[in-house]
């Protein structure tokens, strides 16, 4: 006898960040199919879907509707941090839980959210620690005009300044805005050592295409000079970027072919977004089997199975591998493995930060 369990899915199937959204949705649906196909599982999962179409104002009412009109208490969904913050009041009212499968900027540990992708000590800090000794200390920061771009660049500025680095420029675009000429002109004029790209979706694609053109036109940017670094670029966006993706550097818990993260190996997913959403549903199903379909989140997270998955009951975040990869011939090639890192969403636990690079030893003449 299998217990039926409704699972909410709140992903936009269009809009300016549709690739990420579809990757997460594919991962969640694949996990639901795998649980249902597993003869050993005691659950039958039914997706209850709503599509906010990339409209920030639709997330909260649609989340409330899922919780009101179905038996679902757990919703897998949201791409942007703004939308996640929008749905939290609906989750509180409807006693629901959001499983959030995207990298985020940290400084949040809602009692109603489980975060299955990385936060800054698992993406931004290790990326900067790796990049500065290789490329230099002069950075240009860019991002989409909302909490992700703002807070990521604030942490980047603080980290770089502490390492004696400099921020040459910082520029933002509205989500969906593709007017990147001025931004690229500034980068061309300033010639930073690297660019940190916290733009998302269409803005990011337009920016990366323009940077690829700049590399053709300006010898100062040819080849590997002035690389563009990202904390949210995965395989799911490579098809729309095409050749413009060559040389991009990204950090993440998983890249295609890696085997260090259970959510990724079980799903066979290429993109870490897909893997994180897949892992969220598989974990949830396992924890419900352990504790019963009506258990509250604290009970789910206190189960030993949660610890086995690397889910920290205190912060609601995951222990994750940290990988740095460069796009070469259309696929990510991992160039650095920084091991497993426990999340520190408020950047208050230094012992969880990547080790600062050792000063290079110089021969004394």
């Amino acid at each position, binding site marked *: 006898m299998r217990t039926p369990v409704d699972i909410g899915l709140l992903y936009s199937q269009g809009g300016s960040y549709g690739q990420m959204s579809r990757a997460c949705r594919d991962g969640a649906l694949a996990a639901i199919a795998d649980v249902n196909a597993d003869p050993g599982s005691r659950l039958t999962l039914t997706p209850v879907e709503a599509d906010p179409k990339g409209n920030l104002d639709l997330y909260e009412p649609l989340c409330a509707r899922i919780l009101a009109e179905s038996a679902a208490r757990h919703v897998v969904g949201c791409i942007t941090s703004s939308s996640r913050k929008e749905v939290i009041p609906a989750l*509180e009212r409807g006693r629901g839980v959001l499983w959030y499968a995207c990298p985020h900027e940290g*400084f949040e*540990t809602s009692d109603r959210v489980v975060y299955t992708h990385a936060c800054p000590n698992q993406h931004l800090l290790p990326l900067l620690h790796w990049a500065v000794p290789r490329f230099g200390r002069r950075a240009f920061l860019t991002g989409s005009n909302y909490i992700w771009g703002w807070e990521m660049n604030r*942490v980047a500025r*603080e980290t770089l300044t502490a390492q004696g680095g400099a921020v040459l420029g910082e520029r933002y675009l509205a989500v969906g805005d593709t007017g990147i000429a001025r931004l690229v002109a500034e980068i061309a004029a300033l010639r930073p050592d690297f660019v940190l790209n916290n733009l998302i979706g269409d803005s990011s694609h337009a920016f990366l295409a323009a940077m690829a053109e700049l590399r053709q036109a300006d010898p100062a940017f040819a080849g590997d000079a002035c690389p563009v670094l990202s904390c949210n670029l995965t395989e799911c966006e490579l098809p729309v970027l095409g050749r413009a993706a060559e040389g991009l550097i990204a950090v993440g818990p998983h890249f295609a072919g890696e085997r260090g993260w259970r959510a990724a190996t079980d799903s066979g997913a290429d993109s870490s977004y897909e893997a994180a959403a897949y892992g969220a549903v598989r974990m949830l199903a396992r924890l419900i089997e352990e504790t019963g379909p009506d258990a509250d989140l604290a009970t789910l997270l206190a189960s030993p199975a949660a610890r086995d998955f690397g889910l920290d009951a*205190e912060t609601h975040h995951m222990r994750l591998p940290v990988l740095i990869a460069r796009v070469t011939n259309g696929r990510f090639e991992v160039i650095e493995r920084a091991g497993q890192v426990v999340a*520190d969403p*408020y950047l*208050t*636990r230094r012992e969880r930060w990547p080790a600062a690079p050792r000063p290079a030893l110089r021969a004394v003449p």
Partner: protein
Amino acid sequence: MIRRLPTPELGGATALILHRPHATVQALTRQLSAIGLRPAHDWPEPGAAALAADFVFFDADLCHDAMFPWPAGRAPMPLIALIGSEAPGRIEWALSAGADAQMLKPVGDGGVYSALLIARQSFETRRRLADEIAGLKARLAERQTVVKAVLLLAARGKTEAEAYDQLRALAMAWQVTIEEAARRIAEPPEAPEEGGADVRRR
């Protein structure tokens, strides 16, 4: 101008919650632990460890001055008021107790992190201003000493302006404030005891 706040060093800091056992205490404890602080809870009397806490959350509904092991309004750490009754009297008391930030009860899913940052910022501003005011008051109180020192120096045949310049030069040479230099001139120390240190007393 934007004041840039560095990501504060909150890891391992202690936060004391002065509130009767209640869901609000659980909600605060969860948030504090997630942020990386070490929460402690006391009611009704704060234990000896209260003075060592880095932050204190207090119940504005039921706490009173006598509960705190420090003079009213003079807490040595940032205080955060937990306000239930939004009555003028209670808010007035919370302010007089020295609340640097507040949270409304019931405490739910968020609010602790911003309360910690705001409380610390306003506590530090308040303490810096208090130090500055104390310094200025001390200097004002020394006006008479400065006048006395200038008159003493002027009595050796200088004009008042020359005497004042000399006082300033002495202060610079001794690397002390003008007031301190004036005190040394106007109130010379007693002769040091044999073998004793040259202790200057007022």
